[in-house]
């Protein structure tokens, strides 16, 4: 059975019967990181390291047929 569509006229009724069970803590101290000049982008050094790892994975393909495991 299709559930009844939400009726904006009954919003108050819905509010009374539907509630958020895990609300975010009201007194949490939130800071936008841009306000303190922080941007967590990955550095060039890290990207180079990642490229090296990926390049290693690609070399596997060219060497894969040289070995047989028995």
């Amino acid at each position, binding site marked *: 059975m299709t559930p009844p569509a939400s009726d904006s006229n009954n919003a108050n009724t819905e509010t009374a019967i539907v509630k958020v069970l*895990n609300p*975010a*803590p009201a007194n*949490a*101290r*939130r*800071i*936008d*990181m*841009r306000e*303190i*000049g*922080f*941007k*967590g*982008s*990955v*550095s060039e*050094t*890290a*990207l180079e*390291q*990642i490229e090296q*790892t*990926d390049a*290693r*994975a690609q*070399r*596997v*393909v060219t*060497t*894969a*047929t*040289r*070995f*047989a*495991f*028995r």
Partner: protein
Amino acid sequence: MILKGVELTPPGAQSLRQQIAGDKSNASVDALLAHVVELGATYAIVESPYTDRDYTSDYLNFYAGAFKAHARATKRVHFFRTDISKLFDLPLAEQVANLERLAGENKNYCGFVVVRPIAQGPIGRTVLRFPSIKKLTVRPAARADFQSHVLGVRVNVTGAPFIQQDMRLGACAQAAIWMAGRAVEARHRRTSSYTIAEITNLAINPTDSELSSSLPAGSEGLNPMHMIRALRGMGHQPLHMLFKDLDGGQLSSPTIKAPEVIHRYLDSGLPVVIAMADMGHAVCAVGYVEVPGKALREGGTHAVFARGLIVHDDQRGPYRILPLTENDIEHLPPERLMRGQQKILTVEDNVSHMFVPLPPRVFLRAENADIVVRDFIQTTGYAADQIAKAVGNGNSKAAAEIRSFFADVENKRWIQRTYLTTAARYRRHISLSKLDELMKSEIVPRALPHFIWVTELIDRSSKQDRRTGARQVVGHFVLNATSSTDYNNDILIAQFPHFVIHRDVNPVAENGDVLDDPAESMISFDEPGGYLGRTRTVV
């Protein structure tokens, strides 16, 4: 069906060995029997005949067509820690009731071995419990629950499945893939169950000149391409890694540290097929052993606490140990060490290839997740003063602890432990942990993809909580494991002492458009937020 009981006294064990391997030397059978005795097994029940699905598949695909007649049925041997022979003097109804009670008591059931009627490779599908090793902690990776039946009574064992190659349908490569695949199938239920014959069939199609040089095709070994093909055909996303440089076809010094790389996948609860090119041999790593105390060596990954890998080697037996380095050898039980030409093998010296059966939706590799986290900590450290001021908010203790944390980053005090898990398991662990309740309520409701990498930061001098427990975590990171080459969006949650950075990778502008740049926000807490990390223990 006939059940025969064998007391595992030295003569009894010898008689059982004779039933399994005949007069032939077989290192795997010897190692297997030594393992069950070490588990405390004192009594074996041999069930015959037993129809095993794996051997039936082998039989259909090869043995049924051979001119020489091969037996159709197998035997299955069950191992118990107590002598249950008297039970069989009782009426059948009482036998069942008593066996049900006994099997469940105090790890009484140690597991089972299917014995194939194949002289060159008698050990079929086998599941035995993980070992306990003195002064070390065994961390199972390819652990799954298996059920078998004795007299209609269901008995359970948790272990890593083992099988021997039969040298007709498959070689060590297929046996290692079978062991990895069966463990994933039994634990995660995301792939089907494949027999050795089916694995070979996946590996050899399409065929090539190398495969065609052996008859039946694939019976004399597989190369890495064939192994990748088989794993893919089985529904895994194979991750292949080469640990050694090639110089004119010869292997020279390692460039990526195999112990660190392999350890992360094992710590994710995944089996890892590892291969040794210099020996032409493949095995399946099913866990690792770690020390209860502080780090053993230099390095920034969790492998600094590990001594060796626990390995199923179809030619040397179940639960062998492959030391990480030469320095680890003397601290490990000599009878379980893997030897090749009288030399003890190590991960650092001998392992050349790795194959990980990853879930199909994981696109971020562990090595890259680790690099991204290390970089993020570094970047955050550049803003440590501003963060300390913002978090401090009048709390000088919190500010001092944040500065101290980043000073210790420079001192290389923190170890990164990176493992793959699901959002559900992560949330469960965090919810049950001793993490500050406010931090929990900030972290647990965050939207996460199904698969995530978690990196725990651990003090390199920390010890296990009680014996075999986890180590204290000072901070942790959650990364999107389903992301690929989008490293600026990989980290979703970063929990440092006293603050959590949350990254919204799908920020929405006021006009409703989804923005490209992620939005990062910080929430500060009075408590630092330490807790015990995830742990896997032998059951």
